Each structure stands twice: as structure tokens, then as C-alpha cells.
């Protein structure tokens, strides 16, 4: 057991940090959002630097890929890190250029980067399916939640091998956790800083115990998310570990969204303030795979071997 990052992990994340410094962060995220664009440049850089191969690499692996997804999300990298770094490699598929859509059924609701997406992976009863997407198949959906959304109509997907649906869902869950973790940590750090800086009634906002306790509780939840996510990745995203991590992550996401916005007051509700860059995008993750309740039910079906209701 070892809860510290290894030298390899540190080096990997340092290199990723340097790259994200140039190709991500709030400023770049804002610029891209204006244009409603996917960050092809970032994807190209990540690909060139080998980050899309980390999952299957000797000396690295799924845990390292998960850490990378977390960091890309914390820095608001405008790509689809979960399919590219986790789900496609776990299925042994190459990552195409441009966004990839993950869907838990055919004809899903609005999906991130749907207009630009080249490929869609669909969870089936047992086999997962893969289909090409063309921009003509997409219908943009206006949304305030940060990501450019569109409804997509997939052509008849090609079925992959038996059992691939479970693999896909498990890694998708771990990926959603890692994305949410990165974003939640950034939103949380911003809020804690605000609580230290903002003065009310002649003292720091964060000196009021009522708020301290709420922030402390969120920190407890968030740390739980962190280690459950890493552990699930380390265990190869078993059905139970990934469902447990996703349950805890989504429950935390609900609470954290409320608390960060409550504690930052009105300024946190403005576009000028950075908080929304994370908290609005987080809601897209919240909705994936049926959301909190579906993750919780998945815990039960995997742990106590009950058939899904």
C-alpha cells in the first residue's frame, strides 16, 4: 500500500502540467467557449507527448491515465479525456482525432462536443457498439453549461466483442470520477480561498464556524472521492469499485456544487468569476450514466449480486 505518488507519476504529471499551462486553464477555456470549440491543438499535443498511450504503457498504466484525466479536467482542457485516455484504450481501440461521444443508449440526450464528434461508443446489453458520426447527424442544443452540446444520431453501430459493455461502463465510471475530481478540487480551492479573502462584519468569512464545518465536510467527501477513484483505477475498474467510486463522486458533486456557490455569494454566479467554469461543466458529468441513483443501484447489483430492477 502506498498513497504517495511515485517518481514516474510525479514526472508524468509535471510534464502534463507544463503542457496544460500552455494549452488549458481558465483563460484558454473562456476563449474556446466563445467559439464553442473542441481543443484540437491540445489533443494533438497530448497525442504527440504520448499521453493517449499511457493506459497501456509499461511503467505506467490505467492509474496514471486516470491521474492525467483528473489533471486535464482540473485545468479545463477542452477535449474528451475519458474516451481518449481510458475507455478506448481499455477496449483496445485506437483514439481517433477529435471528440468521441460516450452514450449509455442509442439516441442519447444532448452530448458534449456532439457537433464535432467523429465517433460514438454506445453501451449495449452486453456488447458495446462503435459508430462513426458525421456533423450532418448532429443537432446543436443551446446550453449554459460550458460544453457545446448536440443531439447526435448514430448510424447502426458495429458491435464489439461480448462483455465490452461492462468494460466500457466501468472505465467510463472511473473516468467520470477522475474528471469530476479534478474539477471539484479546483472549484473547492477557489471557494476556500474566497472564504479566506472575503471580509464580512470585520472578519474573514471563513472564520465563521458554520461555514468552516460545511467546507470541512466537503473536504472529507472530496478526499474520499480521490482515493476511491485511484483505487478503482488501480484495481482495473471492477464493477463494484467503479460503481462505489461513482456513487461517492456524484453525491459529493451534488453537495459541492451547492456549497461552493452558496459560499461565494453573488460574485460566484457571474461569468466574470472563474467558479462557474468548473461547476457548470460538472453538471454534464453528473448526468452521465444515469446519474447518482444509477451508480448507487450499480453498487448493489455488483456487491450483493442482485439483478437490476
Amino acid at each position, binding site marked *: 500500500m*502506498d498513497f504517495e*505518488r511515485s517518481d514516474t507519476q510525479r514526472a508524468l504529471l509535471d510534464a502534463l502540467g507544463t503542457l496544460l499551462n500552455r494549452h488549458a486553464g481558465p483563460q484558454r477555456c473562456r476563449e474556446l467557449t466563445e467559439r464553442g470549440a473542441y481543443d484540437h491543438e491540445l489533443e494533438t499535443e497530448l497525442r504527440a507527448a504520448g499521453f493517449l498511450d499511457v493506459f497501456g504503457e509499461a511503467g505506467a498504466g490505467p492509474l496514471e491515465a486516470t491521474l492525467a484525466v483528473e489533471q486535464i479536467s482540473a485545468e479545463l482542457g477542452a477535449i474528451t479525456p475519458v474516451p481518449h485516455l481510458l475507455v478506448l484504450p481499455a477496449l483496445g481501440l485506437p483514439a481517433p482525432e477529435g471528440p468521441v461521444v460516450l452514450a449509455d443508449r442509442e439516441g442519447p440526450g444532448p452530448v458534449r462536443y456532439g457537433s464535432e464528434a467523429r465517433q460514438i461508443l454506445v453501451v449495449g446489453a452486453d456488447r458495446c457498439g462503435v459508430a462513426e458520426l458525421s456533423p450532418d447527424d448532429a443537432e446543436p442544443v443551446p446550453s449554459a453549461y460550458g460544453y457545446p452540446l448536440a443531439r447526435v444520431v448514430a448510424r447502426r453501430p458495429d458491435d464489439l466483442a461480448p462483455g465490452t459493455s461492462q468494460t466500457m461502463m466501468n472505465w467510463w465510471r472511473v473516468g467520470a470520477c477522475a474528471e469530476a475530481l479534478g474539477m471539484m478540487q479546483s472549484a473547492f480551492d477557489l471557494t*476556500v480561498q474566497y472564504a*479566506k479573502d472575503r471580509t464580512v462584519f470585520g472578519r474573514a468569512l471563513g472564520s465563521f464556524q458554520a461555514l468552516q464545518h460545511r467546507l470541512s465536510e466537503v473536504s472529507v467527501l472530496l478526499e474520499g472521492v480521490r482515493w476511491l477513484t485511484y483505487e478503482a483505477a488501480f484495481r482495473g475498474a471492477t464493477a463494484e469499485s467503479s460503481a462505489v467510486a461513482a456513487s461517492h463522486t456524484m453525491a459529493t458533486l451534488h453537495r459541492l456544487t451547492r456549497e461552493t456557490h452558496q459560499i461565494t455569494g453573488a460574485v460566484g454566479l457571474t461569468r466574470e468569476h472563474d467558479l462557474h467554469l468548473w461547476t457548470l461543466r460538472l453538471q454534464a458529468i453528473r448526468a452521465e450514466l444515469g446519474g447518482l441513483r444509477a451508480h448507487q443501484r450499480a*453498487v448493489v447489483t455488483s456487491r450483493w449480486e*442482485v439483478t437490476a430492477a
Partner: protein
Amino acid sequence: MEFALSEADTAFRSDLVGFLDRELADGWNRSEHGLGSAVYTDFSRDFVHTLAAKGWLTPHWPPEYGGGGQGAWQHFVLGEEMWKRGEPRGPQYMNVNWVGPSVIKYGTEEQKKELLPPITRGEVFWCQGFSEPEAGTDLAALRTRADRDGEDYVLNGQKIWTSYANEADYCFLLARTGSVSDGRNGISVFLLPLRTPGVEVRRIDGFVGEHSFNELFLTDVRVPGNCLLGEENKGWDIVRRTLAYERVGAPRYARAALVLDGLADWCRAAGLLTDPGVQEQFGNARALCEAARVLVYRVIDERAKAKEPSPMAYQARAAMVQAERAVGDLALDVMGSEALAEQSPGDAQFRNSLGAGIAAGSYEVQLNLISRLILKLPKE
């Protein structure tokens, strides 16, 4: 980062599991009883002898004090497997986790010789005499006095909520040797034999499981100077260390998870486990148990690396409280009035969970410490 036990620790776990499966075969599942109930206490008297014979009572202690010299993970695996089965060591988990280690660290050779062997053999019960009527969360307000009289100390005062005092042989007791204005700097630890004249134990009727609270009245209790642990007036440091152990020393999430499994069996039999709403509550509770587990593991990792205890223990402790409460609430929510029946699968858990955030450092105290030491929020 790596989330697997070493080969040696894994082998130890599987030996231990085999042993417990044999030893506790007789329908031992005491999750229907509350922690600290007589069932555990009675059972533990014989059971720990068997454990001691295997060298599994104090495996992490140094060999010179009757231990096996094993690492922090082996110690923890032991605790986890015990709590997963409802803690058949009864109150003796405290001896093993923090009473003995405190004596090892701060005791004189004479104290070690006298006090440690009975613990390693599983022959004694200890209790913890910290709280007083006017000193709970604000422990440093304690007033029980210990005054020097020649070579002896004379103790006067009152302790309260002292678990197991009715059964215990010794009390790990805090008393004031300095003045009240010295606050934390005037407190000392005494290793008090409870059979000393002037000690009176009275039961307090509580309903947190079958847990028995006690009051301890000390009237002119004369003890020799060698009952003092460590230096006079330096007891607070010992306590801080002791509590750091206590906070995560008992893997309470493992017991909560055991109860949750029992509740799942009950719900399955009642045809409820396929109900989506019930499933959601189970998923939530299981996730909280697992979150507590990983946060505790993170603390054990620090301990295994011999680092100074960090504030991460407060997060782990708070997470355990959340897990215990979630399982207790689930029991009452899904079982309906069946949950109210004594020894139903959730009865003890619910009542225990009411005390979970109070004993061993309250939930609010953990949150205060997290705010200050982890989030570094300004003081009130």
C-alpha cells in the same frame, strides 16, 4: 501509488481469516449486539487467549515487550478483520492499540515489566478515564486532582462516561497535577489500578446499544508515585498521541459494512433488495463505508512510513462517523418497525451510530481541526 497489501500482509490476512472462520464458526455474528455489550466482553476473555497464543494479540509491538515486531499494516489488518466480525476482542482492542503502546513509549522499565505482559497474554481490561462532568469536548478543563504526598499521589475527583470501568482492572486516567490556570500544561496521566481503595464505580443507564457507561468517583485514592506515566504535567502530549491512535485505531467502517451486509440479507429475504429506492440507499451507505476505509488506509500508510501523525486522521474519523450514521439510518428507513425489535440487524447499529460522532473526539471537533489544520481557515 499502490493500493494492494504486500504479499506478507496478504498472507497474514488469509491466515487470520482462516483462523477466525474456525474459531468463530459457532454462529458468531454479534452485529446484532451493541459494541461494548456484555456478550463481547465475556466472549473476549477466552478468545484473546487463543489469539495471544498465536501471537496475534499484539503482533505490532516490539518483540522485547511480547510483540511480534510486525508493521503497521499487519496491525491494521488484524483490527479490520476483528471489526469485520463485530470485534471479538471486546474492550481489549484498546489495550492493544493505544494503552500498551503509550506505556511502551512513555513508561519506566518497571511499569513496562508490570503492565505489559498481562496485556500481551490477554488477562486484563483497561478503561479510559478522560471525560468529566464539566470536561467533555473541552477536555483540558478537567478538574480531577492528583496531589503529591511524599512518594505517593492522592487522587480526588470524578470521571464520567467511562466505558468498561465496571469490568476493568486499570484506568488510563487524566488528572490535574498543576493548577487549573495551567490548562493543558498541568495535566498528568495515571495508570490507576481500579481496585485501589477510594475508587467507586457506578453504572449509568444509557441506550447506545448495550453499551454501559460508568461514573468513577475518586475519594482520597492513594497511589504510589510509579502510577504516573511519563513526566508530571506532561500528560497532554501523551494524550494527543494516544488520541491520534484512537481516532482511526478502530476500523468502525468495517463493522458498519458488516451490518450493511446483514441488512442486505434481510432485505433480500423480504423481497426489498430489488426495489430501486432501497438500492439507492444501500449504494450510498456502501460508498460511505468504502470512502471511510480508503481515508483510514491513507492514515495507516503514514503510520507505516513512521511519519508524524497528520491531520488526515481527522478526515478519516469524520468519514467513519458519516458511514456509521448512513448504515444506522438505512436500517430504520428500510426495515420499518422491524428495525425497532431488539437485536434486529439494524437495531444496535442505529443506537451505536448516535454515539459515533461523540465518543473519541466529537464530529464537530474533527471538523474544527480540519478547518484549521487542513483548509487553514482563519480562527474564529
